[in-house]
């Protein structure tokens, strides 16, 4: 059966290539999809989409480029687009979607978006990345958020701690863990991880409005303000609770420290939940997910999207089918249950999700209604990659002591951001 569909796909592809020149042949029924979801859970999640499309008679042509952050995939995509042979769609992150849209490389699926009323169900702030001048050219697959802390429940009970609600309570909790001889904070000392944690620290220290002013508007007075200095000081406080070997550690190894109970807590986006799941740990029973202390009610998001490229007319039908299937409620639910994130549309029922997922879904709705749904600076959702890179540089240099005081940290931050703009 599978062989036959493959054969059919092959025949369809060959005929499409052969007849492209002559008049209008039948539509190309293949979806060519570039992505980096090659590991177990993510690949399984993507299979759901493949199955949905197969039911409608569309064949799936996989273009996987492995590698966690998608760097390799982005390079491959650039080459395909530059060669004038874009995939039907590609997994894409943040400002890369904007870059392709501005370069005029993306297609237009507004007709479908209007019909399905996506503008209503997708969080408003997120539409910045899926639309260009009111035109839909990408579909969001999920919403991740970075302002989470992941706590080993057994360790928390052992040290007699409770959920920290403010930054000071968080520090007090970490002190308790330290006194009990547990590593308080599991951290991977890589620039992106430190910057991701700093996103939460800033939102906690100055509030989400301050975060928006500093990172979304790049307001120089906010970037230089005492609140930003205090944020850096708070970040420096956290360093005292890491183990001495944190530099260069991968994020999943830090998660493993929490899973094993060597460490109490990790500050990380909700992709960390996948690691707990893979270790057969249950949300609420073995581990706890809280919003980063002082940021409850806000969601600092990043999202995976499928960018829809400007393909020839005979491939458009397949593209629309892909977009439609991706945005279907059933796929959004099935995919995100596996991936650990929450659906990108807010009308998906949360019945299939665990308690962290349920909280995540509720948080997105509430934050969107209150205007507290903002892009992550560290993950390229507040500013273009050049600025985000400058931000990574300053945060990591400060965290590792190359920049010595919070005073010079804010000066350097403004300087680096201005140089990158």
């Amino acid at each position, binding site marked *: 059966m599978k062989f036959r569909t493959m054969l059919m796909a092959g025949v369809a592809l060959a005929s499409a290539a052969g007849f492209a020149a002559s008049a209008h042949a039948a539509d190309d029924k293949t979806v060519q999809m570039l992505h980096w979801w090659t590991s177990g859970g993510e690949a399984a999640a993507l299979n759901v989409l493949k199955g949905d499309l197969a039911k409608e008679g569309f064949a799936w042509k996989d273009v996987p480029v492995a590698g966690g952050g998608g*760097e390799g995939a*982005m*390079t491959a995509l*650039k080459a395909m687009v*530059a060669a004038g042979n874009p995939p039907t769609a590609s997994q894409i992150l943040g*400002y*890369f979607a904007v*870059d*392709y849209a501005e*370069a005029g490389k993306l297609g237009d699926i507004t007709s479908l978006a209007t019909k399905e009323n996506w503008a209503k169900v997708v969080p408003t702030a997120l539409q910045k990345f899926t639309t260009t001048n009111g035109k839909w050219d990408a579909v969001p697959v999920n919403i991740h958020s970075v302002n989470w802390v992941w706590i080993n429940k057994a360790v928390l009970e052992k040290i007699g701690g409770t959920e920290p609600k403010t930054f000071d309570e968080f520090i007090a909790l970490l002190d308790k863990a330290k006194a009990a001889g547990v590593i308080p904070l599991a951290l*991977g*000392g*890589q*620039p*992106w991880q*430190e910057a991701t944690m700093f996103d939460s620290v800033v939102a906690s220290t100055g509030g989400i409005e301050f975060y928006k002013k500093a990172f979304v508007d790049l307001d120089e007075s906010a970037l230089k303000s005492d609140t930003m200095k205090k944020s850096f000081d708070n970040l420096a406080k956290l360093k005292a609770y890491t*183990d*001495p*070997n*944190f*530099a*260069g*550690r*991968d994020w999943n190894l830090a998660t493993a420290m929490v899973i094993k109970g060597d460490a109490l807590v990790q500050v990380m986006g909700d992709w960390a939940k996948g690691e707990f799941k893979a270790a057969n740990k249950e949300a609420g029973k073995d581990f706890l997910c809280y919003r980063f202390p002082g940021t409850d009610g806000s969601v600092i998001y990043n999202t995976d999207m499928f960018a829809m490229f400007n393909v020839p007319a005979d491939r458009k039908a397949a593209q629309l089918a892909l977009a439609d299937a991706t945005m279907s409620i059933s796929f959004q639910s099935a995919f995100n249950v596996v991936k650990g994130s929450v659906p990108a549309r807010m009308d998906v029922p949360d019945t299939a999700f665990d308690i962290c997922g349920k909280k995540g879904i509720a948080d997105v709705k509430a934050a969107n209604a209150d205007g507290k749904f903002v892009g992550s600076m560290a993950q390229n959702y507040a500013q*273009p*990659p*050049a600025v*985000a*890179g400058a931000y990574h*540089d300053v945060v*990591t*240099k400060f*965290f*590792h*002591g*190359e*920049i010595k005081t919070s005073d*010079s940290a804010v000066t*350097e931050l403004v300087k680096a951001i201005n*140089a*990158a703009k």
Partner: protein
Amino acid sequence: MTEITVAPLADVTMPRPRGSVRGRLQDALPKLVLAPSFAAILLFVYGFILWTFYLSFTNSKAFANDHLVGLSNYQKLWTWTFETDPPSGWYTAIINMGLFGGLYVVCCLALGLTLAILLDQKIRGEGFLRPIYLYPLALSFIVTGTAWKLFLDPGIGLEKAVHDLGWTSFSFDWVVNPRMMIYCVAIAGIWASSGFVMALFLAGLRGIDGEILKAAQIDGASGFMMYRRIIIPIMRPVFFSALIILTHLAIKSYDLVLSVTGKNPGGAAELPSTFMYSYTFTRNQMAVGSASAIIMLMAIAAIMVPYLYSELREKSQ
């Protein structure tokens, strides 16, 4: 050796039926055969060097564009070169290149030569030892780097093993100390490449005419003298090839530094290659990346061209 192989070739090709189609074809054959690869190199190496050079004068961001901005990208790099407190990424990259490249090339040459000389003492089991030293080269740099990162990690590797043995004051945390990380990269690199350099030198040692050595022995040269005055100078061409191979390995090393240091914590493990990649592909500042690539190329040229020139001129004399 060379004379013997060249001579018969010359004999065969000399009496050529001039003027005939076949003869002309034979004349053109080497050129015809070489033409495709020549054209490919011309386009894909030199063509793209020129393209990069052009891009470095534009303000290309995510994609290449042709909006010329003069020297501003080079100006940016030039100011970064002198930003030491806190060190800019580019400054760190240059310093690290010097540290890593210098240590890597010098230690590989020294270690490779020593190993080769020791192996050349007609010892038993050479056939067994040689591949052991060569094997590290069979591993990709990413595997080498990951293995060394784990081995040097204070929490699970060397330091912990020594502590478990009872020496608890022992401390070796270079791999998690941003300031010392680059030395760990050098250690891993030297481990991986010195066996290969050894093989080069060993081949050179084996190629030395025994008659010369015998003559030296008769003249009463000691073992050390023989190496210093005769053998090592004869092996100059081997030094030459080893140096070229090691220098370009050092300058293009990318995967090694990423895998040993874990994605550049504290911005302290930057090398020109990682700098170039991150600006071109992840930070969408392609023009700055191109400018840094051109500077890398010029730095290599500044070192290699005079050396190549002097070596080749001596040979032709």
